[in-house]
């Protein structure tokens, strides 16, 4: 008849967790890493993902950076080469997939148009850019598909606050 004193407390906590837990794995910042299996062109582009996961749905921003060269950090605002909205994103237990909305029209991180200088010459087109990735809380690996070309890519989780601003060109002063 006598119950263990921890039982009601554990029950309450369990029920509370059941009712208000949201699924957030893969939410956060992911930065593209270059290695032998996932080579990057010298002076090419590097990608940074700012993702938000809500259950099985995925959204966020892809930020493109001009690679300044070996031993230099490409993920600086001065290297910004435009941002794009993540569209049609889906997330599973170990997989992430999304396409880039309006890849030909890059957005700006702020109203001053910071990217314009660092993005010359204009990067190559990537028609129908789609990412299909697989991994865990630390690493995502997979492919970036541009038209008929699949490019192997690898991302590692980074700390920081995700970016939610990607201004359209017509909003630049």
């Amino acid at each position, binding site marked *: 008849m006598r119950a263990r004193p921890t039982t009601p407390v554990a029950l309450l906590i369990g029920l509370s967790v059941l009712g*208000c837990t*949201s699924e957030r794995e893969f939410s956060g910042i992911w930065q593209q890493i270059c290695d032998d299996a996932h080579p990057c062109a010298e002076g090419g582009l590097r990608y940074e993902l700012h993702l938000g996961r809500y259950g099985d749905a995925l*959204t966020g921003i892809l930020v493109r950076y001009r690679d300044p060269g070996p031993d230099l950090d490409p993920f600086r605002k001065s290297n910004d080469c435009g941002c794009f909205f993540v569209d049609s994103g889906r997330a599973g237990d170990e997989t992430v997939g999304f396409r880039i909305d309006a890849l030909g029209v890059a957005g700006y991180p702020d109203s001053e148009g910071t990217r314009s200088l660092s993005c010359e010459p204009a990067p190559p087109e990537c028609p129908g850019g789609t990412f299909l990735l697989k991994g865990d809380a630390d690493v995502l690996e997979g492919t970036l598909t541009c038209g008929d070309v699949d490019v192997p890519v690898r991302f590692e989780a980074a700390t920081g606050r995700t970016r939610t601003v990607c201004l359209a060109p017509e909003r630049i002063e």
Partner: protein
Amino acid sequence: MSRLLALILVVGAAGVGWAAPPTSDAARLNLELGPEFTRTTVWILPPLDHRPLLGAGTAPVPALEGLIAGLQAYANLDVRTPDRTSAAIAGAAAYRRALPLARSAAARGSEDYRQVRLSAAVAGLGEAVDAFIDIGHQLVAGTEVGRTELTRGLALLETGDEVGAAAALRRSLLLAPGVRLRAGVDRQAAVDAQERARVVLAENLPAAQAVFAQRPPVPGKAATLQIRILPDRLEVVLHDGGRLVTDQQALDAPDAGERLAGRVWACLPFGDAPRRRITSRKLHLDAGFAWFLFTKAPVELFGNVGVSATASWNAARYLALEASASLTNSGRDREEDLRADVPVGRFTAGPAFATDAGRLRAAAGVGVEVSVIGPVQTTTNPACKYFRPGDVPARLCDFEQDVDHRATAWTVGPTVTLGASLRLVDAIYVGVRAQGSMYVFRTVDNGLDRPVGGQIVLGYQLF
């Protein structure tokens, strides 16, 4: 919340004062003690009649019967009569184990005495008497113990130890005042020695507290009452816990036994009835944590956590009137479709079937719930969750179209509650309560209905 707890403490403190007014034992005796009252146990030992030491007869003493009957008349006492006390002592396992050994030692000592092995007789009989007294055999068969000590005194007398013999003879007379050596049958020197011992006792009789200095070996730790009968009075010694109380009563009073019983009763604890005082309280207040979820919602299940307070009034046997209020805030669903916290205030009231069983209390009730549910904002579009208005193209998220806004709603519906509580100490209890409701009226259809949840509370039985 802190104000509510302070109110409960203040009102509870006042309730303690009202619920337990100081009452005399005599006044409490006139009240119904109730089935849960624990009476004070008193073991009355077989009386020790010392009248023969003083040359008086052993006629029945009406005051002795009056004393026992007087104590038995008090409803708060559980009086164990002398016969029952003797049986309890004799029934103890230690007594039953030690008695054969003591009697064997006594038999060997007596045989040594008959065979004139006086030193062995003195030693063996002394061991036997000590063993008898250790187990309380003198309270069951005082004559047997007194005769054993008498034999030891005779052995000492024959060894020429007149001082030791006199002490042993006095001790044997105190244990068995009626046992006498007979002139013409026993040695005259022994008869004279015993008479001298009796005269010494008659002239300087030991006080009752010296005779009854040790608490008798009765079961448990209850009070014991030992009685000595003298020609003109009764003397009693009461052992209660660590206390030793002595009293005496002259026998010439018409109601001597009852008078002595009244004084003994006044020295005893009244008994214990804490449960009766607690369970008679009618108003129970509690406060604690509340949790629930809407089993019908436009999004996946999400928890609501907050605080609650409940008042329960015992209107009649098995019938309580309960009112409860809670204030909660929502968590998030798995998809985070719920975009803003939803505060919910709930008030329920209604009758309940309530029953108590010792420390446990169970209640089942029905009633009406009136709730106020704050604005509800939902969306299933992930872009509307991630971006702020103005930061995302309308083709990905149109905040006007893709986000649903519902205003504050008032709802009314029937509710069912089930509860159980366990009294911890005094009037403080801990409880759990489950509740389910269904709304039949609402001012705004926000899609939220059928709340199911529970509470964990700490309460106080107030009045």
